């Protein structure tokens, strides 16, 4: 078993063990152990990756493996990673681990909860290691569908509506994506011979311009929807607000990341001319999302809605960064992906922690919580500050990369886009401070006087995420180097 396939098999083994476990305690211990192994594996992967690179391996993907799966269609189980996928895998394992800690206390159907969570994680891992479009698509759908159960069973509020909407919109988007993938597949052999799903095989040939222009929007919208591309983002506020904490974390932290990753790895890499043709159109959509999400967040009263719209805004920035098509902006987009993953996951975790105590998420019903739950309060404030891009936290680094990259375009159109994008950091400050000011600060309320303090598992879960936010924020050069090297072959094609 190679180092990458383990990322798919270990979760499956965990699921199998879980099925035979008895009692809540065993369930969570099994899930936890499984994911601790997974996290350690992902750290090991980084180490191995750097080691391989240090030895001078210059290939785009390392640890590649290629097994013929469906011979008639030339479908392979083809895997491989570069720096970007490695970091995404770390992101995923860390967030899932944190998610398991946060949902330590799940009472209703705990076994099923953990199984769904792990299946979802399997899909995400598989997605990030795939270099074959078929397996990539398979894992993508595998990651989306457990969401339905997770939100539907363990969610709150209009959970049925939200989960149905989320699933349908995402599966609809994946259907659109499918068209794009098939289009690529059937144009992958211009000189006869078998078609291929392998990304790097397709990249070797220049697809006809017409084909690129035709199929680029399919793949972009397909992946864009899960990245909350305006106007296909509406599943996200409802979905997030209804989802249980760990699921919101995973969803915003990991699942939505597949969009930007897919756009980068497939749409842009395989269809450079298509990219140039469509850039301006999608830039307008992306920037609309950035500003729009931020403004809409100001008006929300539910914590989760605020964070969901904030995600729309921040992931819009990822798309803006990607569409700026240069090394710096792409690095920024990737960093933003990581940063947003950790930050939003942390915020959702804390929202869950607060909600678990106050039983409300309406900001006007809370006040002065910092007095009674200081640790949670401080973490919340820090997470908020990280979200608004304070130096020292991850958001700053990524946003600055995006802006510097975006400013490399001197024409008026890009300037306006960039300035609009930059202005979102002010609006972000407005809604974050509004939340922090309303619920954490302000006069204390009697009914919250006896709130229990933070528990050890909540502490562990949130601290893990906080550590990574600060790590990216303070050691951006380390992450930046890993990303830069991996971005180079991709940017060179454009």
């Amino acid at each position, binding site marked *: 078993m190679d180092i990458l396939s383990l990322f798919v098999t270990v979760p499956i083994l965990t699921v199998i063990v879980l099925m035979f476990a008895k009692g809540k305690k065993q369930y969570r211990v099994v899930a936890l152990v499984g994911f601790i192994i997974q996290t350690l594996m992902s750290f090991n992967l980084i180490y191995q990756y750097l080691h391989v690179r240090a030895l001078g391996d210059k290939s785009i993907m390392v640890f590649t493996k290629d097994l013929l799966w469906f011979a008639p269609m030339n479908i392979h189980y083809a895997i491989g990673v570069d720096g970007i996928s490695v970091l995404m895998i770390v992101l995923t394992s860390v967030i899932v681990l944190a998610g398991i800690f946060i949902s330590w206390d799940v009472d209703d159907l705990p076994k099923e909860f953990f199984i769904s969570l792990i299946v979802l994680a399997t899909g995400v891992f598989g997605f990030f290691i795939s270099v074959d479009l078929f397996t990539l698509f398979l894992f993508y759908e595998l990651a989306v569908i457990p969401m339905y159960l997770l939100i539907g069973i363990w969610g709150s509020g209009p959970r049925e509506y939200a989960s*149905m909407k989320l699933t349908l919109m995402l599966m609809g988007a994946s259907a659109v994506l499918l068209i794009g993938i098939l289009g690529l597949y059937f144009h992958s052999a211009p000189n006869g011979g078998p078609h291929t799903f392998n990304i790097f095989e397709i990249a070797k040939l220049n697809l006809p311009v017409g084909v690129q222009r035709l199929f680029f929007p399919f793949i972009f919208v397909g992946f864009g929807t899960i990245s909350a591309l305006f106007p296909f983002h509406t599943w996200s506020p409802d979905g997030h607000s209804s989802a249980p904490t760990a699921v919101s974390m995973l969803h915003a932290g990991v699942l939505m990341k597949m969009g930007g990753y897919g756009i980068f790895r497939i749409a842009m890499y395989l269809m450079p001319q298509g990219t140039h043709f469509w850039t301006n159109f999608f830039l307008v959509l992306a920037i609309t999302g950035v500003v729009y999400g931020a403004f809409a967040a100001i008006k929300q009263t539910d914590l989760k809605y605020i964070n969901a719209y904030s995600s729309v805004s921040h992931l819009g920035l990822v798309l803006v960064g990607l569409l700026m098509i240069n090394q710096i902006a792409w690095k920024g987009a990737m960093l933003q992906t990581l940063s947003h993953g950790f930050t939003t996951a942390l915020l959702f975790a804390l929202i869950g922690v607060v909600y678990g105590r106050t039983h409300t998420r309406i900001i006007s019903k809370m006040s002065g919580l910092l007095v009674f739950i200081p640790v949670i309060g401080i973490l919340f404030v820090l997470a908020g500050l990280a979200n608004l891009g304070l130096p020292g936290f991850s958001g700053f680094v990524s946003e600055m990369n995006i802006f510097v990259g975006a400013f490399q375009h001197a024409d008026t159109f890009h300037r306006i886009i960039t300035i609009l994008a930059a202005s979102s950091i002010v609006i972000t400050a407005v809604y974050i401070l509004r939340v922090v000011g309303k619920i954490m600060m302000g006069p204390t309320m009697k009914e919250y006087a006896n709130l229990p303090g933070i528990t050890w598992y909540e502490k562990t879960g949130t601290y893990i995420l906080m550590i990574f936010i600060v790590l990216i924020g303070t050691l951006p050069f380390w992450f930046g180097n890993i990303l830069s090297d991996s971005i180079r072959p991709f940017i060179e094609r454009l």
Partner: protein
Amino acid sequence: MNWNQILLMRNEIVLTLIILLVLVSDLIVKDNRKKIISNIAIGLFVIHMLIGFIPMPEGSLFGGMYRTNHLIFGFKIILNVGVLLILLQSASWLHDKLQDTTKIGEFYIILFSSLLGIYFMVSSGHFLILYMGLELSVLPISALAAYEVYNRKSSEAAIKLILSAAISSGVFLFGISILYAVSGSLYFDDILGKLPISYFSVMGLVFFFSGLAFKISLVPFHLWTADVYEGAPTPVSNYLSVISKAGAVFILMVLLFITMNTLHDIWIYLVYGITVLTMFIGNFFALRQENMKRFLAFSSVAQAGFILMAMVSANQAGVSSVVYFMAIYIFSNIGAFGVVEAISMKTGKENMKDYAGLYRTNPKLSLVLMLSLFSLAGIPPVAGFFGKFFLYTAAAGQGFYVLVFIAVVNVTISLYYYLKVIREAFLRTSDTPIAYFKSDNYMKVSLAIVAVILLVIGLYSPFYDYIYSVSNIVNF
């Protein structure tokens, strides 16, 4: 004609023997011990199924009226496995629900007769055999639909089925007669290349097509489906929705791809239009259904649309994806119907609303239901995903991206109603849930096999590779 050649009809011969054996044993076994006939029939059928796995050469009999090849051989194995699963579910139903146990034996005889008809239909090389196979498969099923003689709905379903079938066979025959007039022969091999694109052959094509479309439940020939599925006993609906549909799909495909390839430019429009119509109408009706059997009926209408979609690609990929999907569809639908049957047998509840909170009382049953529905909806890693994917690939391979787009839109719609069922079973809770119950071993075995097959068959690629390798029946 020697002994070896006769053995090409191995499936049919053995099945006929089984029918006779069951008939005889039905005479011997005392009335109060009729349940043993189930075991005899199922045991014999298992033997039959195992015999089916023995490799067999390609060839034809009776001057080409009957023929077999590797694809047909494989397809019959799939049918056999499907029928075995249905038999297990039927046994469970027969023992549990039927007041008059003396009728147990008849059920198997009639069901096997219908299967025999499908065998002939699949293997036919002549319109006469096709017609006879078709009738032989549908008439016994009409009888089975009326099997609950004291149930008004059952009789209503049966009469609707037989009247519709009669009309359809009339149209079908009329179409064949026109094709006969145009081509001068009723042998498939002789017709090959002799059908010019003309008003007559088009009319013959459409009328003939509608006869098979009736069995596949393509819009607008599908209207009987929902009523019959709802009224007929569940195993019968199950059988109708998978086995008889699969037979018709297979022979339609063979005829369109090979025999009528000169009409390709015309029937491609026919297939295209009917596909779109079927997917939309099937889905729109399924959206609203409350009765589970009716719901599955419309879902199977929509599924038929997806199957037909792959037929726009008249090549090896098209054949293999259709056969592959049929196989997966058979198991998925058997699973879904099986669960519905198990519940309706023990509690009499057939409405979607009654399923609220099912997971909390009957987790295993709900999981099988979920797997089956996910497979129908095409969600990985369940087999249906692979089936659907290859269907799209087949259609897109011929450049029908718009058709594929319509199909994926419909998959999304269909996902909605499949999730509606999941929603009842998993998401909701109920004050009066379906209480925990134990099904008998027949049902248990059947559902367990379905679950395993659904999980394995897609991921296990040699299965598809095999189907692809034997699908080289088309060469133009």
